[in-house]
């Protein structure tokens, strides 16, 4: 479904990604784990077109998207839940969700999706007239995921959904990620520092170090890999 071929991305003169290649198959949950500053977020930003790669190719369903504008990429069906949630604090929950559906014009479809989201996250329905900034961290993460879902993506990019959340909330967020993948068949590209949890719900995983992919395996394989255990699982 998504293919990154030898991507090199720079911030000014600093090279953040060095020849990264990743394959994502339709319907799977894939995870990219690694330490701080490894280039995980940059990978997602490159896919979204916000930090486009200087060289290499990104193919979405066989189509090159690396020189497209971010809004065209969203229109193709790739949505990102950015790191640190980045909801709009002064807009209400409803308005935040509506911003997610910015490119859509089908009123009925939007309404149906909204109901689906409120069914999945009843707390958002309760708080829908409240300003985004007044939500708790977990609620904001739910809102950020919901907002991305409102674009009706086929590929959902999640950047550290566990960031700064209590373990019990993290568990719920991951349950929901699995549910989104299972129920609507949305392909999920999950970037995480919490390697243990991420690998447990993912089908396959990539390990990133200093802008390079250093390992690639089935998630179950990475979970028992000695190097991964030592470096990322803390066992």
């Amino acid at each position, binding site marked *: 479904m998504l293919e990154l071929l030898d991507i090199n991305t720079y911030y000014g003169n600093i090279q953040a990604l060095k020849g990264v290649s990743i394959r994502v198959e339709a319907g799977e949950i894939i995870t990219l784990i690694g330490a701080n500053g490894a280039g995980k977020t940059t990978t997602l930003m490159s896919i*979204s*077109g*916000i930090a486009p790669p200087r060289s290499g190719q990104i193919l979405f369903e066989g189509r090159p998207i690396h020189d497209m*504008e*971010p*809004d065209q*990429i*969203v*229109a193709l069906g790739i*949505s*990102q*839940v*950015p790191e640190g949630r*980045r*909801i*709009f*604090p*002064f*807009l209400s929950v409803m*308005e935040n969700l*509506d*911003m*997610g559906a*910015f*490119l859509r014009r089908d009123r009925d479809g939007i309404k149906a999706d909204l*109901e689906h989201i*409120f*069914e999945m996250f*009843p707390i958002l*329905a*309760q*708080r*829908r*007239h*409240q*300003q985004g*900034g*007044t939500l708790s961290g977990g609620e904001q993460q739910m809102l950020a995921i919901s*907002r*991305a879902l409102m*674009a009706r993506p086929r590929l959902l990019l999640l950047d550290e959904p566990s960031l700064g959340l209590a373990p019990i909330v993290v568990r719920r967020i991951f349950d929901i990620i699995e549910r989104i993948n299972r129920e609507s068949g949305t392909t999920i590209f999950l970037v995480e520092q919490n390697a243990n949890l991420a690998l447990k719900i993912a089908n396959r995983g990539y390990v990133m170090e200093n802008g390079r992919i250093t390992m690639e395996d089935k998630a179950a394989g990475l979970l028992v890999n000695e190097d991964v255990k030592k470096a990322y699982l803390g066992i």
Partner: protein
Amino acid sequence: MLSFAEIRRSVLVSAWFMFLTFPVMVIRVNPIEEVVEWRWRNLIMVGAGSFLISFVWRYLIARKERGKKAAEAGRAGGPPLARRAAVHAGFHKPLMGALAVFVLIFPFLFSTYQVNIMATALIYVMLGLGLNIVIGLAGLLDLGYVAFYAVGAYAYALLNHHFGLGFWAVLPIGAVMGATFGILLGFPVLRLRGDYLAIVTLGFGEIIRLVLENWNDFSFGPSGIANIDRPGFFGVEMSLEAATNYVYYLLIGLVLMTIFFVNRLQNSRIGRAWIALREDEIACQAMGIDKTKTKLTAFALGATWAGMAGVVFAAKTTFINPASFTFLESAIILSIVVLGGMGSIPGVIVGALVLILLPEYLRAFSDYRMLLFGAILVIMMVFRPEGLIAGARRVYEFKGKKETSDTADGIHT
């Protein structure tokens, strides 16, 4: 409140002020009689005045802090009285009705002079609401807004002078010209934010003014253009008084239209995209909002109102020259938006009326106008940083627990 520490602080402040102002306020050298006058009375007045002011200042700050704490603890009695009265159903309609009647009969109650300055204030309401789109909603600090105002004014003046085009024909042309210049300015500054954007827009405003001042063949230079036609009304000849009243009503109409459009824009998807862009550019891009297009529409729409206001201004004064479009005008319009409350329509209206009408009625203080201007802005920023009437989106509103549980079951709305 009247503790020893407080008094000591104020004494220190007043001593410092007495020291600072001593050379200016106390010593006066009289070169003719070759004597030095020591005006000790001034020293006492400065001391007493600064002592009092510092005391009142700290009292007000303390009161503000207490108010904040009370609001945080949930003990605040809801929104302030003025807002409650304004939105309360029982008050809202009669209030609006009374306001409408007052606005309609205003020219019959007051002299032509009053109507004239009110019309000027209404032009600034339009300008303020236009700039509010750019600054209040989209968060783009534009210090050259007066350039679009000049574009509109010169569009009418020149088209009227050379081709005899009437007010109503040029009004839409002025709007389009404004929008075009808005996009022209928008393109190069798309990647800039904050301070850099402010500097570039400031430069743009000056460029327009300098071009108008120096390109004599085109704009008649500093001498300006005179004898511009007043707005026509089906070819009816009007006395000066009737014409003034006519411009007043025309402006009321235009302001109402502006309010209507800005209100619709604010609650539309594009309006929310502006607010979202102001808050978080990366999240906007991740949502598929086209940054370029959204920013350009903000610039273009903001400039549209300035263009129209310019046309009306030229028609109202019948004479324009580049001196009407200096940076000071941009600063005044910006102050209207900031003082009134960014992103708030009633705020901007009140801000425009206060900032334009007050100096007119305070002619006696005209020497101190800029001083007062600065003082008002400083005091506002300290005590009401969100403006006279804060925009609804500028403050977090915590809804009570009761309300959230009430709406919990009504998901499908």
